[in-house]
């Protein structure tokens, strides 16, 4: 049995596996460093000129909201 995983290289040149993509007020992508499972990052998925972009979160408040969204969907 096999499973397909996706990963992406971020601006720090590290590869991050995609854990989840969840949609609340915005759509968020939850990522973990392939080399370190405790190294986690949240990015916002936006569309610019028909191209999907992973954007850094704007505020600490948005980070809290993204964490809350994960919690609601994970439990």
């Amino acid at each position, binding site marked *: 049995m096999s499973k397909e995983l996706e990963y992406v290289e971020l601006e720090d040149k590290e590869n991050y596996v995609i854990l989840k993509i969840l949609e609340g007020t915005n759509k968020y992508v939850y990522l973990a460093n392939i080399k370190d499972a405790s190294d986690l990052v949240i990015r916002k998925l936006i569309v610019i000129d028909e191209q999907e972009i992973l954007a850094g979160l704007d505020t600490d408040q948005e980070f809290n909201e993204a964490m809350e969204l*994960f919690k609601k969907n994970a439990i």
Partner: protein
Amino acid sequence: MTNINDDQINRMRRKSVKPGVHIVFSNRKKIVVRFKTFLIASALATGIMAGGANGLANMIENVKDNWDFNSYVQQFDDVISDENAIYRTGDQLQYHAYSENFIGQEIAMSANPELEMYNVYSRIKNDEIEGYLKEENLDRIIRSVSIYANSDPENEKIQCFAGCKSWDDFLIKQKCVIDGEPSSEMYETYIRMVVDAALKEQELEEKFGVGA
């Protein structure tokens, strides 16, 4: 091994809150890995337990070497079918009426040795506790800690264990207690993310030979 602390949550916040940073998502790559599902408990649990045991080690320097935890567990097994049984549990504990509540206390103490039952817990070597806290004992552990939680409704830390429904649940709640943030929803959420990551990390490790 995965160890978790507040610094890592702060690191996650710093790496996530980056106004203006844009990465083209379509550049993502796909890989196919062999599917394994059983590693959450073994990989993550070992990390969490190791963190807890290390912290506890400093507090049980005077542990009694003659404590026989296997015997203790066997006696507990016997009590399940005879709740009124009284057993001699050790030279310093004298006689004690065993109950699921009692072993629940000890399991909870393994995560929180600062409570008043520390004197009981200190007679149990931490590696023996660690050996007992396995998924195969899940039903008994959950039942025990839940009963203990019900018996002490004013104790906020112990209440963390109430309503455990799975092995992951137990580990997450225990980790919260170890780190003294039983009510931190943020912390619990973070740990749940690491559970996810630990699983995928193991899959990737097979593919690439990398990992924590």
